[in-house]
């Protein structure tokens, strides 16, 4: 379990990192927290020619309030996300999701940008960001662009991020009044990747009618996915127990989990259904309706 040899560079500034990324003659990989990349390299499932270590880019580690939400720098560690009062108050879903990320040792190193770029369908943060309708800012030597999280994930461990781009910032809209969210996942052992899970954001009008619903599923297919069929059942209605069960069922039938040693696809679908149901109940309750 030792990696193949690789070149290692640790740029001191973002422009320097972008210049390195722009070099398409070398197969490069960005090293952020390294909590997925290093094990993959040790198992020789990944063997990049060059590692661009961005841990010196301290100006990418921040959590900044905005009127409409939060800007979080790509190099912000999960631990700092978890500890942030702003995150807890403005985007409670991300706070809740960060608590499910592995163990403190992993959270101390792992970063928001890193887990997003890695795009593991069973990882918590990408699904939480999908449910949060986040906007990702990617930068290259060509300039900067905003990518809606809706357009970011592109199949198994892949994204629409270009090889010369670096994620620099993630914007999360603040939870509106009459909004509620919940993050639920199940793993056999605490801290593991989810067997199934769901991130839910619900917004209600002042009559308690659901105005918008975002239901995103963990480990439900090759990439983080929403469950539009489930969301469609909720919008325009008051959420009672029966509707919640129907919406959970709809979410589960849209899910495509794979059989693994931790459970069959059928079992995993049942877990997703349960997680959606619990999430909808909790989010409704938290919204105060």
């Amino acid at each position: 379990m030792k990696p193949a040899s690789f070149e290692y560079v640790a740029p001191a500034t973002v422009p320097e990192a972008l210049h390195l990324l722009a070099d398409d003659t070398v197969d490069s990989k960005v090293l952020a927290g390294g909590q997925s990349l290093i094990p993959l390299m040790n198992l020789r499932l990944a063997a990049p020619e060059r590692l661009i270590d961005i841990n010196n880019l301290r100006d990418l580690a921040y959590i900044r309030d905005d009127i409409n939400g939060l800007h979080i720098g790509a190099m912000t560690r999960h631990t700092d996300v978890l500890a942030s009062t702003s995150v807890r108050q403005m985007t409670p879903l991300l706070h809740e999701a960060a608590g499910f990320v592995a163990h403190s040792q992993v959270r101390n190193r792992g970063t928001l940008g890193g887990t997003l770029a890695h795009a593991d369908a069973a990882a918590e943060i990408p699904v939480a960001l999908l449910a949060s309708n986040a906007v990702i800012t990617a930068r290259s030597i060509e300039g900067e662009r905003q990518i809606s999280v809706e357009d970011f994930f592109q199949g198994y461990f892949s994204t629409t991020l270009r090889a010369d781009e670096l994620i620099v910032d993630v914007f999360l809209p603040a939870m509106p009044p009459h909004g509620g969210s919940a993050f639920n996942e199940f793993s056999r052992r605490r801290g593991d990747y989810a067997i199934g899970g769901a991130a839910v954001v619900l917004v209600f009008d002042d009559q308690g009618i659901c105005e918008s619903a975002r239901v995103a599923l963990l480990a439900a297919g090759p990439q983080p996915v929403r469950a539009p069929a489930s969301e469609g059942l909720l919008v325009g209605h008051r959420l009672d127990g029966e509707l919640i069960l129907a919406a959970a069922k709809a979410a589960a039938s849209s899910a495509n989990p794979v059989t693994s040693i931790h459970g069959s696809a059928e079992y995993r679908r049942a877990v997703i259904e349960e997680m959606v149901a619990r999430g909808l109940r909790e989010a409704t309750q938290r919204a105060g309706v």
Partner: protein
Amino acid sequence: MVTLPTSGESQQWVGQPLQRREDARFLRGTGRYTDDVPHAFALHAAFVRSPIAFGVIRSIDVRPALEIPGVIAVLTSADLGHATLTGFLDRDEFIKTAMPILANERVRFVGEPLAIVIATSRYIAEDAIEAVSYEIDEFDPIVAMDDAQRTPQPIHDEAPDGVLVDLRMFNDDELEEVLATSHVVVDETFRSGRLQAAPMEGRGCLAEWIDRDDQLVVTVSTQLPHQVRTGIAQALGLAERQVRVIVPDVGGGFGFKAVLGREEVAVAAAARILRRPVRWAEDRLESLTASFQGREQEYTVRAGFTEDGVLTGLAADIRCNIGAYSAFPFTCGLEPIMAATEFLGVYKVPRYASRSRGIASNKPPSNAYRGVSRPQIVMVMEGLMDRAADRLGIDRVEIRRRNTIRAEDFPYSGPNGITYEPGSYLEALELCAAQVEAAGWRQRCEEAAPGFIRGIGIANFSERNAYGTATMGLRRMPMTPGFEVAHLAMDASGDVTLTSGTCSAGQGHETTFAQIVADRLGIAPDRIQLRQGDTDLTSFGWGTFAGRSLVIGGGAAAVAARRLAVQLREVAAQLLSVDADDVELVNGHARVRGTGASISIDEIAKTVHFRSHLLTDREEYLLESHGSADPSGMFSNGCHAALVEIDAGTCAVQVLDYLVVEDCGVIVNPLVVDGQVRGGIAQGIGATLYEEASYSPDGQPLAGSFMSYLVPTAAEMPPISIHHLETPCYQTETGVKGMGEAGTIGAPAVILSALNDALRSRDAWLEHVPVTPADIQRLLALPTKMESS
């Protein structure tokens, strides 16, 4: 000479909850494990391993690897002279097969070593692995035990039907008749999954040939220093003296290191061939998929009961999937023998017959794992009790009570040919049942939240341990383990060095052995240093396994200490001009009874070393003694209870609370005993709810990392309360019984019992471990008894 109070109790160290002397270095990261032992010039080994479960090796081409800068050598079986290790029992029912050090002609499991690469770093060695090419013609592998019947190609030609050991040790002509006339017969099949012990520190070694000593010095992480020496010497054609095995701190053994692996032999061989030091540290992938596993067993049992729930007889057909090879030195007969012999546990079973087989498969070889077969047999016996109780309408505790061996039955001889010395089998059951009531578990069961179901389990069992030569001899290994010899030497400062052939894998021997010796010498335990794990330093011994260390090693140390105490009293008597019989050793002094005259033990030690001319009556010089112990073996016993909860939404199982009654005789150190119990239960919970070394039908390992092999963490552990009973065993001078395995033995049975209690409304029983959420889902989907009636 000083005057001490003429009376006053000596400090008694046995029984004290002394903090472990080892803890400071373990917790601060200053322990020294095999891979921490520095060597400036050591080369690094890595193994080319088979990706194929079963096949014939057509060719191996190592030349491309040799061209990589930094690669020193790539050795195959031929380079090692086709060396082998052969673990066998000298009995007709056992088929002797050899395990080549590097695969020769055939590969028999994924991960089997084909070649050893020696390079200047492990990184380069792993590059070289990728450069070695080979051709293997594949056969259909034998993965499950039933596969052996349908495959024409046997794993070992010596055993065409795949059965390497087939024991019918216990027969009873009248059993069938008894079962036929029993009020009920519970007829069930129980299964347990394949496990890996997963110690924090994997295997590892550092081997160097030293010309000066004409010796191969092998630093190795093992539980068996002397048996590793014997195995390496035999495999490499060296005299025992030419191999020195040194064992530094060991980061967990659990039986996983009560074995000699082929990798350690290959590294030793490479060091000898190359005349250069070579080191190897197993990585987790190798540890999980290419080392030793165990516990994959199936029990088909029929148990007869009277109308009152009293056992009438038991027939068992036991099959163990022993993997591809017979491990050295304990052999693939280990699990079948222990399962058959100790099956009956704490119960009176009038008639018993069993057949017990070890069946080869294309998986890594099996070896001991903490508890060896006892977790299974207890799971089976307790499962039978629960089933019978249910069918006869008898309370689960009551049916156990009716079958348990009682105080008045001892010494009890069962149909398994074992005579049981006193234990507290019924007392443990009663205490445990009373504690369950006192803890309000029944109330807690009723208070489960909607969507959650709770149940209570109970398991009463024994743990046979400290097998001496008389018992081990019955197995017919070519070398019979059992005795220990301890040496004690007091130096000129009055400090004592104790050497033992036992070898701690982290259990705290440095603390507990010192407590035993301290009481006999009247000095503090911190004056006693245990040295272990070095074949040039200690007498020949048998290492650590099966609860033997403190009983046999500690028993030998007690004898040596008693003899050293005699010497100290005799010297004191000369120096104080009194009779030695009037001298007692108390609080660091030799004190004359009644007069208060005394001399410090430090002063005695100084005199013996530096002024021996004063001791004209002494025939011997210095202060040295030895002692030995070889008990036949004994049973600790215990009773566990568990409160579990099922989340019907996720089918997750959580153990909410856990109760232990433990009787291991005299307790030397309660902290160590409780730690052993807790650690064992953690592994037992792992075996019951989380861990499985699973394989695909084509023999590929599916659990190659801790993301897929789920060892429980602190978050999965329940609170555990432990109650002690003490029934001493005087096969040694200490009254101690072994107790390292009780936790792993009791936990699967008790959790399964609790789950079946929680699911009692369903007309189905869980009879296997590990229990996965999918199993729970299947049972919850069944109609309840009420719905179906």
